[in-house]
């Protein structure tokens, strides 16, 4: 379970998060939306303890990520897969080494098994035949999918996706959406998906959180958001409503 209580964060005078309250139960799939620069990535980074709150608390599985000892934080993180918005692949390693790093660090030495898992995870994201390629030689969309495969490799209980389908073509986007849906349904993975794609939201999230001016402005079912008459909600969804 993830509990975020009264979370404040600012960067030299730029107040990004101004009192976020959010609780996410195990097995939930929550989409987080909001304007560019509103602090979605910053919020995700607080949940895995990459950023420290100015005020408030982030508690994951009973561990306060702001105050816990490194050892406890690492124990929580082993249950979390994190897809970075910018992929953050290790550019000194091949695709295979990227995907298997987490497993190797957990003590897995069996080369065949590592290769098999790599193939399997790459197939899940619609890639193959690139195990020996260096990240620099991949397209942006491929890098994102390799990063997704990497975060899936250790089969975490939590998956945090920072814009998993941004920059992908519609077909691959659908495939990724289906994958996220599948993980939740079959493996009971708790997912947080930061996205600008309302189709993704409608399709896979049971709950959507709309961040606005550093606070949770809407928290509820996607259909209630799309039907809402609140001017700010409507303004944010305008483009999507025209398309849908």
């Amino acid at each position, binding site marked *: 379970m993830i509990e975020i209580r009264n979370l404040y964060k600012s960067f030299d005078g730029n107040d990004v998060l101004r009192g976020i309250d959010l609780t996410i139960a195990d097995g939930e799939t929550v989409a987080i939306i909001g304007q560019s620069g509103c602090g979605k990535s910053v919020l995700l*980074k607080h949940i*895995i*303890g*990459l950023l420290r709150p100015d005020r408030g608390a982030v508690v994951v599985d009973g561990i306060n990520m702001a105050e816990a000892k*490194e050892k406890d934080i*690492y*124990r929580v*993180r*082993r249950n*979390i897969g*994190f897809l*970075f918005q*910018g992929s*953050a*692949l*290790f*550019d*000194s390693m091949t695709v295979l080494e990227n995907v298997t*790093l*987490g497993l190797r*660090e957990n003590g897995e030495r069996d080369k065949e098994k590592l290769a098999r898992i790599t193939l399997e995870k790459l197939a899940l994201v619609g890639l193959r035949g690139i195990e020996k390629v260096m990240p620099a030689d991949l397209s942006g969309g491929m890098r994102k999918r390799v990063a997704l495969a990497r975060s899936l490799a*250790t089969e975490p209980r939590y998956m945090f996706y920072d814009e998993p389908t941004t920059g992908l073509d519609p077909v691959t986007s659908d495939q990724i959406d289906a994958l996220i849906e599948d993980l939740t349904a079959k493996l009971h993975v708790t997912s947080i998906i930061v996205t600008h794609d309302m189709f993704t939201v409608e399709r896979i999230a049971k709950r959507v959180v709309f961040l606005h001016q550093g606070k949770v402005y809407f928290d509820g079912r996607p259909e209630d958001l799309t039907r809402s008459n609140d001017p700010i909600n409507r303004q944010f969804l305008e483009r999507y409503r025209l398309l849908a």
Partner: protein
Amino acid sequence: MFAEFGSASILAFRTASYTSSIPRDRRLVLEQMEHIGSDSLPLVLIIGLFTGMVSAWQAAYQFKGMIPYSFIGAAVSRAIFIELGPVLTALIIAGRVGASIAAEIGTMKVTEQIDALESMAISPIRYLALPRISAAVVMLPILVIFANIIALVGAFLVSNFYLDVSSKVFFESVQRFFFVKDVLGGLVKAVFFGAVTALIGVKVGFETTGGAQGVGNATIRAFVLSSAMILILDYTLWTVIF
């Protein structure tokens, strides 16, 4: 300044606290030893050779009319073992390795690869800092030994060919004034120089912000800081050892 020193010490302590994982991470350490050691060897040898040659000329120039040339071997070898070998090798490593550590880690920082390691519960200190610092601590003294030998050869060549000092005279003089303490003192200094250079490279790398330009600045900063620290340490250690 003091805050910097404090945070560098904290980084050093945190790195040291992972020492026990060296056996497990030996592959990472060996990789860095190769990068820091073998890859730097050609440059160290060239610079060592010329340093030795020029110091023979310099000694001859200063001795002229005061001290017989038969003392060149002793003077030059002691200068090499105590000062020239360790300090010049360390400065080369600061430029070549310290700067590249800062650039590499700095790039990882600004492209969120450090965050990615953290998110996978892999300590960047253990995974990045420890192999680099421990490899530098081991390899720098080894490079210094190579530098010492080749510099001595250079000094001998100049003495023998241009200054009419026979090999017997040259090496007898080296031997007569050879103190194990000189060589060991130089190597102890090298250990510190290696640690400081790698530590600064790592620290500056971890603190990098702001894209490609930030990485460029980090590279320069690492080189400037570590060369200054090498010379300051050289003085400090002199007062302690000799």
